């Protein structure tokens, strides 16, 4: 199915034409700072199913083991909508909140729980990982 994610002001948009391959929650410090919340929720789609439109600024940050992550955010409102990660070169990660769909597919994994806020729990079964998912 087709879904659209966009930033707060609507200028940066991503249209996806398939269901995500992976939906996950990440509690790492990078995701907490980026979102200003307790975790990030990401959906990874194959690149051929993703079409982005609108201007974006790119913030490049370090990932694990020398890898990079390129975060695309709107220069007008600051919202990070999608990113490209060296860890998953065939996929685009999209911020699930940008879809604004409370019925979006549920996360199946929860990573970097070593820095999880103690009060955060899930109401369904997820796979729990203290650091990243095993590759």
């Amino acid at each position, binding site marked *: 199915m087709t879904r659209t994610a966009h930033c707060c002001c609507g200028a940066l948009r991503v249209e996806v034409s398939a269901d995500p391959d992976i939906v996950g929650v990440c509690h790492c410090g990078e995701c*907490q700072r980026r979102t200003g919340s307790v975790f*990030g929720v990401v959906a990874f789609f194959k690149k051929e199913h993703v079409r982005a439109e609108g201007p974006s*600024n790119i913030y490049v940050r370090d990932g694990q083991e020398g890898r990079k992550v390129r975060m695309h955010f709107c220069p007008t409102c600051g919202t990070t909508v999608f990113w490209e990660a060296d860890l998953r070169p065939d996929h685009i990660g999209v911020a699930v909140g940008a879809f604004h769909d409370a019925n979006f597919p549920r996360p199946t994994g929860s990573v970097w729980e070593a820095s999880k806020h103690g009060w955060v729990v*899930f109401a369904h079964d997820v796979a729990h990982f203290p650091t990243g998912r095993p590759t």
Partner: protein
Amino acid sequence: MERTGQCHCGSLRIIATGEPDRVYLCHCKACQRRTGTAFHFGATYPKERVRLDGGRKIYERDADSGYRIRFHFCPNCGSTLYWEGDRNPAVCGVAVGAFDTSAFPPPSDSIWEESMHSWLGLPPRMDHHRQGRPPAT
């Protein structure tokens, strides 16, 4: 006491003095989009107890109340750390996730639950509100 937080890239820092007036979660549409995650985790303070340090850009829009609200974000990485608005000019809000994990107490309120993701578990002792928090009587 002072608590210090920073944006994703570290260019914009925020220093908050003393205890927040309120710590809360917001599941509204605008907060989910702005944060890109399931909910916004925020704290409010009197403005004079919060200081921003570093370059910032401001995104201003109409709030649901009809008043103007302004989000201060880092132009290098996009993270929003702070906001203030015309509805209550003496108060500001901070993004709790920008601070160290253990720096803040758990939230006491959860608002706009009508658009909450169903898979979320929330702390046991919270006030739950389908929409905004009722005004103080």
